[in-house]
């Protein structure tokens, strides 16, 4: 009998230890599902800092590259889902708006210096707020450019870019470097064209219409698709890798740029820390593509980095998360760390940026150039739209004829209309 009592007591003790996990439930904790692998290290540091300062647990989980949507879906199913996650574009808003807290009037939203990077749903709910913004264009190695006899400042339109790129490519053997880095079309790199460079068409269409998009338009005209073609052709024809080898990928454009194998690299501001190690004075120029007045063009600025707070999390967790976000954008030490990784944080009290490409963007803006916004975020049914686009570009790269270019145009223009119709159901 005594033994039985002892056994039962032990069992109860064991069961009680399970409840220990609930003890800090009242305090609330933060679980941030991050979608940028390159920022993981910094975010883990931030999490530790916050825990030391306030005692609140911050868990940061980073989805593997290209699997954010899968990871988010499975994590949200769990009993302890992310309290802080990313809703970065209009498709994301459609899927996840029901799970996002209205951030209007929260302390962190009041810290924002601009409304430009925020996302709203149809009812006007503030679904997510930008925590940093980025820019993309063509990264340049000024030293190599100079070695070839050109200056960054002299390249201010497509004609100048073309002249320099074609000349460098022709003399590649003699110079020891080429004009553009490789332009792979596999899934790890094709978005540089189907997601980013094509933005020049969307942006100029917006500009012609005189207003920025606030939702996905039913159709686009493709008025600047030929400009896209000019620039795309320039990149693939004057690069380290022949265009016929691009479809399956396997080249390392970043490494080519860092090791001085090419002058130009089509990429974005998030590459700065990696690139600046080897090319400290690397800078960025806009997508010059032969549009009239493009001497006044700036870089493409926007973001997909938008914080959303889980509306189904407990009140305590939501509060803890909002406090954490506020701390991230106001604490000098934390914001300095984040800015180093993210570039610019559009908040009144965040530390200024150290990113050379974003500085280039500011310089263009100061010189009176127009900022090209990320209209690309409105691409309908992104995966399918880009899939058709990539496939058409692959056909075109294998046989760059006008007929094949028409397939690319179909994918861009007709593809938009049809995918937009599907997205709207």
């Amino acid at each position, binding site marked *: 009998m005594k033994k039985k009592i002892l056994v039962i007591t032990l069992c109860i003790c064991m069961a009680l230890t399970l409840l220990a996990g609930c003890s800090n439930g009242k305090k609330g904790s933060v679980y941030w599902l991050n979608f940028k692998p390159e920022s993981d290290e910094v975010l883990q540091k931030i999490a530790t800092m916050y825990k030391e300062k306030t005692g609140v647990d911050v868990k940061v989980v980073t989805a593997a590259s290209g699997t954010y*949507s*899968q990871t988010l*879906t499975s994590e*949200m*199913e769990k009993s302890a889902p992310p309290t802080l996650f990313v809703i970065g574009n209009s*498709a994301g808003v*459609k*899927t*996840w708006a*029901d*799970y996002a807290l209205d951030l209007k009037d929260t302390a962190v939203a009041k810290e924002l210096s601009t409304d430009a990077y925020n996302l709203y749903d149809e009812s006007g709910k503030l679904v997510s707020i930008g925590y940093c913004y980025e820019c993309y264009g063509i990264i340049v190695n000024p030293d190599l450019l100079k070695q070839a006899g050109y200056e960054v400042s002299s390249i201010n339109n497509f004609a100048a870019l073309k002249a320099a790129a074609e000349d460098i490519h022709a003399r590649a053997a003699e110079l020891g470097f080429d004009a553009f880095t490789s332009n792979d079309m*596999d*899934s790890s790199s094709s978005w540089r064209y189907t997601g980013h460079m094509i933005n020049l068409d969307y942006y100029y269409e917006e500009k012609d219409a005189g207003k920025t998009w606030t939702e996905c338009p039913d159709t686009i005209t493709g008025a600047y698709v030929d400009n896209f073609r000019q620039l795309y052709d320039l990149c693939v024809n004057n690069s380290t890798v022949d265009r*016929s*080898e691009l*479809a*399956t990928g*396997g080249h390392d454009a970043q490494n080519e740029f860092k090791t001085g194998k090419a002058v130009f690299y089509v990429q974005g501001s998030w590459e700065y820390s990696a690139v600046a190690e080897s090319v400290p004075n690397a800078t960025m120029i806009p997508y010059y593509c032969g549009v009239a007045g493009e001497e006044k063009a700036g870089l493409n600025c926007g973001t997909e980095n938008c914080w959303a707070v889980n509306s189904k999390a407990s009140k305590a967790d939501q509060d803890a998360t909002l406090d954490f976000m506020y701390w991230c954008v106001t604490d000098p030490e934390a914001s300095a760390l984040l800015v180093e990784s993210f570039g610019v944080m559009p908040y009144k009290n965040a530390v200024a940026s150290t990113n050379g490409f974003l500085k280039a963007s500011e310089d263009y803006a100061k010189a009176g150039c127009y900022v090209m916004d990320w209209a690309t975020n409105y691409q309908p*049914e*992104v*995966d*399918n*739209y880009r*899939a*058709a686009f*990539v*496939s*058409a570009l*692959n*056909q075109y790269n*294998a046989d760059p004829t006008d007929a094949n270019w028409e397939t690319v145009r*179909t*994918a861009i223009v*007709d*593809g938009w*209309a*049809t*995918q937009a*119709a*599907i*997205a709207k*159901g």
Partner: protein
Amino acid sequence: MSRNRNTSAQPQDGADVKGVNGFRKKLTPMQRWGWLFLGPVVAAFIIGFVWPFIQGIYLSFCKFTLIRDAKFNGISNFIDAFKDATFLHAFWYTALFAVVSLVLINVLAFAVAYFLTQGIKGSNLFRTVFFMPNLIGGIVLGYIWSMIFDGVLSHLNTNIFMETKYGFWGLIILMLWQQIGYMMIIYIAGLQAVPDDMLEASKIDGASKWQTLWKVTIPNVMPSITICMFLSLTNGFKLFDQNLALNGGGQPFIQQADGSVVKTTEMLALNIYNTFYGSSSAAKGVAQAKAVIFFILVAGLGLAQLAYTRKKEVQQ
């Protein structure tokens, strides 16, 4: 005799079994503790298979972003699934792939097995070598073969993403390379079990080698053929990782007149996956409906094929 068996206790059980006389039956230890041994397996099976399976079927009738917020919406997911041109394309493409790979894998695996049971030198080494590709994971295989095909096709100034036929035959070659060794092992076991006296008798009766193969060997290895065909048919239909890795997610893609994009080398499993994680929020239920259709299809075909080839088996 039968009365005896009913009324007397069975001494070898070592226990009083008096059930028939209306007394409480005393259970043997095995009867008493059986559940303890069965329990974990049954529980694991229910948790890991039965419950998710039932839930999966239920979800195919729902619209959902997260499972816990699923809302019942009737059979509209199934209607959408059948209306989806990409799904129908994936179905026919998969069926073609499954049939071609089924025939080629089994013919070649049987041929290899046949030669390796003829007592040639080093047959153990060959068996090991042929079996080895099967130990490599599908994704890795896909990428390795993608490099090999690119190496070859780049001489023709093209690559495996350019044309559907390259993707199709590329995948067939990959699957042959991977599966032949596995099926070969099963066929070897079958061939070794063919009774020597039958072979000897046919030899004495003056049958040619070809006649012996068709009239004696093959009827005797029918059980192996049944299982190999079942495995290669279901493998063909369920193929996922090799398809994902080798065909770049289904390239080349073709834009349809109605605006949908058909991924020409996308097979059923990959189509379901791509639908589930597509950007449309209504897609998850449709993907689930596709998965249920997929299950019925694979199970139905597999069972039909089993029933058909079983009939051809001979009793030794």
